[in-house]
């Protein structure tokens, strides 16, 4: 009887010991990184604060641009029509106005199912990279897209799509999966060109991919800055 008693306890001790060492190893790992992780926590707080402030600034910019537009329209009403029209066209071309029209909406997401099924595999093979978004956007432009946004970020001339670590940034704004790419243009043409290349490759790698043609979609205005320090109009110094 007393022998039987020994066996389960031994096994229990083994298991507990195993977990303890495992846990200790993790704790040791954390404690050696501790000063860094503390620093990271501070950095994350700073980032969150900056992002909050930037959001408010962009709202203010959007509002002020609207007010300025309205004021201009009122003041110019019935006069200087030509000037007014060219200003309006320039604003639309620059991406400063929300726009609407026919087009397509592409949704792509990290392949979380795939990663779950292969937890030991390199996670980079399952997450969406900025280059995939850049490729889709470039193809949409070839297909004659007239306006594009990703997760509500309007792409203007100077918009970049890049990454810091594995965060994806557009207009220096962090965007997270799932990514919704909206493009105004000929739905058939746009769908044809993207499904033929980047989306096809992504589908092969089992990323969740969705594409729908939309009768009327709305793409928001660019709310960032237009600050130029280096470029000057030629012949005007």
């Amino acid at each position, binding site marked *: 009887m007393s022998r039987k008693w020994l066996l*389960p306890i031994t096994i*229990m*001790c083994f*298991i507990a010991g195993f977990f*303890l060492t495992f846990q200790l190893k993790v704790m040791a790992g*954390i404690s050696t990184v501790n000063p860094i992780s503390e*620093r*990271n926590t501070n*950095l*994350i707080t700073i980032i*969150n604060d900056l*992002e909050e*402030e*930037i959001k408010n*600034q962009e709202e203010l*910019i959007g509002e*002020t641009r609207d007010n*300025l537009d309205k*004021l201009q329209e009122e*003041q110019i009403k019935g006069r200087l029509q030509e000037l007014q029209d060219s*200003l*309006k066209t*320039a604003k*639309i*071309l*620059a*991406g*400063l*106005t*929300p*726009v609407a*029209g026919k*087009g397509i909406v592409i949704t792509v997401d990290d392949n979380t199912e795939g990663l779950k099924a292969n937890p030991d595999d390199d996670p980079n093979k399952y997450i969406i990279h900025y280059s995939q978004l*850049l490729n889709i956007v*470039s193809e949409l*432009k*070839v297909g*004659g897209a007239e306006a594009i946004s990703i997760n509500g970020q309007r792409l*203007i*001339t*100077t918009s*970049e799509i*890049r990454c*810091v*670590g*594995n*965060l994806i940034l557009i207009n*220096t704004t*962090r965007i997270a999966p799932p990514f919704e790419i909206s493009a*105004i243009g*000929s739905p058939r043409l746009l769908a044809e060109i993207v499904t033929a290349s980047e989306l096809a490759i992504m589908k092969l790698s089992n990323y969740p991919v969705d594409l729908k043609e939309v009768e009327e979609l*709305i793409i928001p205005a660019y709310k960032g*800055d*237009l*600050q*130029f*320090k280096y*470029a*000057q*109009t030629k012949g005007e110094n």
Partner: protein
Amino acid sequence: MKRKWYLTITAVFLVMGILLSLQFRAQENFASGLTMQRTENLIAMVRDLSSKRQNLSFEILDLTERLTAQKQAERDDKQLVSNIANEMNKLNIITGATELIGPGLTITIDRYMPILYIDIINIVNELWAAGAEAISINDQRVTANSAIFYAENSNNVFLTVNNHTIDYPVVIMAIGDAANLEKGLTIPGGIMDNLALFGAYPVLEKKDETTVVARNDTPHFYFLKEYKPEDTSSSESKPAANNQIHND
């Protein structure tokens, strides 16, 4: 004796349970957004966001000044025209309507370099990321709607920008802070390193003055129209929003 046995097992399970849950919590933390990033990346984010915040505050200052100037202009046509001209100047930089000069970087790619249109897309994207204000490729201005692609005939493949073929040498001109633009391309592991793997070495030159051409033609939009939200109540709700800000 038997009771002690139970006690031991219970204690062991309790400890194990706690350890396990701790372990799970630790792993969960690792899976979400910013906490997953390395310190240097977080520092880069702070730097980028700070400079964006600064630019936005300049923009707000600009817009406020313009709003004041516009109000003062009332129905003074001359003033109105000059206000709008200033605004157009800025918009033209973005839309590519005018030829621009400024300091910057040129990237020259000759016929024999193994470079594809996709590399050009990546270079242009990196230049925007590094703060380029305007970019052209040979005689084509790069704007929001510019397609960078290729065309082929029986014996050649050509780079195309805005549906125009680009001849060699391909010269990409970018206006901006020349040093920053160069750094954007040459950072270790960046695009230049990447191209070097394929034996392609575009020539970078920092310039005190580069010229970026105007776009050839105004893009025509067939599908897009300006979206005007129905703002019936917005004019009444705005003063209330302003009050709130003041109360804070």
